[in-house]
């Protein structure tokens, strides 16, 4: 029987012996070579000790009958994937700050105090730092009000550049004292991303700080808004989330999921 390739293929007994000298990865690849190699390279006899060594946590003996039908090479494959997923680092965000515009509006009953539309690229940030940005050059001036606290309404929207999408970070009411040096802090719970079940809270809030200039810098009878800071704060550890985590959060609401 002549064949059009040299007949030097390893006899199965040789394969069976050599298989004991192969690491799991090579065994798995070798089982894709051809059908007879599959039989030699994926036997339980070979894979059982490998599985027990690498994944002693996958000891299923107490499940009895059902488990004996799972080949050990399959058990190894799922063990390997499971171990890998546990240490997986999240992917790079698809969004960058350059894709976003922060729109902030703070108003009293009678007037707008702050209206800002700040493109993300103008925000100063360090990728290793946190998702918290000071929006400077606000410079809004208004009459000082000697009375205690004033009602304000705060809206913070994040717009995907080109008006492709919008996400409302904060839309709330609060009180702040309109006097020099005063500072107001506002927060609102952020929704859980749609892909994960809504029963788990998101654990993050939108955070905004409004600060007025000191008496020296203000005019007579006036206050100046000194700064507005916005950020995403985790209420689990009371720290601002990283820039990447913030972008990954926003991505759920601004970028369509790949199906």
């Amino acid at each position: 029987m002549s064949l059009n390739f040299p007949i030097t293929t390893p006899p199965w007994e040789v394969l069976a012996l050599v298989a004991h000298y192969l690491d799991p990865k090579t065994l798995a690849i070798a089982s894709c070579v051809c059908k007879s190699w599959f039989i030699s390279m994926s036997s339980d006899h070979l894979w059982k000790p490998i599985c027990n060594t690498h994944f002693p946590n996958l000891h299923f003996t107490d499940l009895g009958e059902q488990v004996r039908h799972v080949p050990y090479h399959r058990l190894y494959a799922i063990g390997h994937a499971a171990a890998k997923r546990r240490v997986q680092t999240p992917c790079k965000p698809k969004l960058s700050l350059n894709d976003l515009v922060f729109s902030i509006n703070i108003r009293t009953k009678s007037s707008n105090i702050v209206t800002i539309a700040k493109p993300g690229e103008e925000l100063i940030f360090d990728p290793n730092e946190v998702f918290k940005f000071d929006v400077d050059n606000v410079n809004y001036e208004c009459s000082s009000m000697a009375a205690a606290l004033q009602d304000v309404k705060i809206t913070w929207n994040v717009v995907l550049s080109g008006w492709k999408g919008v996400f409302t970070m904060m839309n709330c009411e609060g009180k702040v004292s309109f006097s020099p040096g005063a500072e107001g802090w506002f927060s609102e719970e952020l929704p859980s991303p749609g892909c994960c079940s809504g029963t788990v809270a998101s654990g993050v809030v939108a955070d905004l700080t409004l600060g007025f200039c000191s008496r020296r810098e203000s005019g007579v009878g006036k206050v100046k808004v000194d700064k507005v800071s916005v950020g995403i704060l985790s209420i689990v550890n009371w720290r601002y989330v990283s820039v990447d985590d913030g972008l990954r959060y926003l991505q759920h609401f601004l970028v369509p999921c790949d199906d």
Partner: protein
Amino acid sequence: MASSSTSVVVSNKEKENKNTKKVTLKSSDGESFEVDESVAMESQTIKHIIEDGCANNEIPLPNVTSGILSRVIEYCKKHKEAAGESEPSVTSYTSNSTTNPLTEWDTEFVKVDQNTLFDLILAANYLDIKGLLDLTCKTVADMMKGKTPQEIRETFHIKNDYTPEEEAEVRKENQWAFE
């Protein structure tokens, strides 16, 4: 007629005795090889035959051809010499090089065509010579490591008898190994 060969120097006497005792191994194709018993006993299989007293004069080895048998004997001789001559302390600690002299010899020994290599594996298994089995199997194993299935097929001249669907299926099962 100095028959009073009492053991004055034990090791030398033992060595002399061993040197004179020989066995004959007969290959499947009828060729006979005379070797020192100590060399032949590198093979656990032959060792059991001799110890069980079934040796007579010739030990037939129907599974091993003369070509392979002569190589196996060469291996056993070389390794027996090396083990006998050197004391453990000398080989292990005085040599600064990471390879011991036999590693190089072994590497040359397995530079043979695939068929011969496979026959050596089978012979080492049948004759139960651990060192030779390790050496030959590791050589073949190294020929498979780090290769894709197609490269392995080319190395060993194997025909792929999977249908494209079957191949995709088995690759998927083993996806983790390809990453």
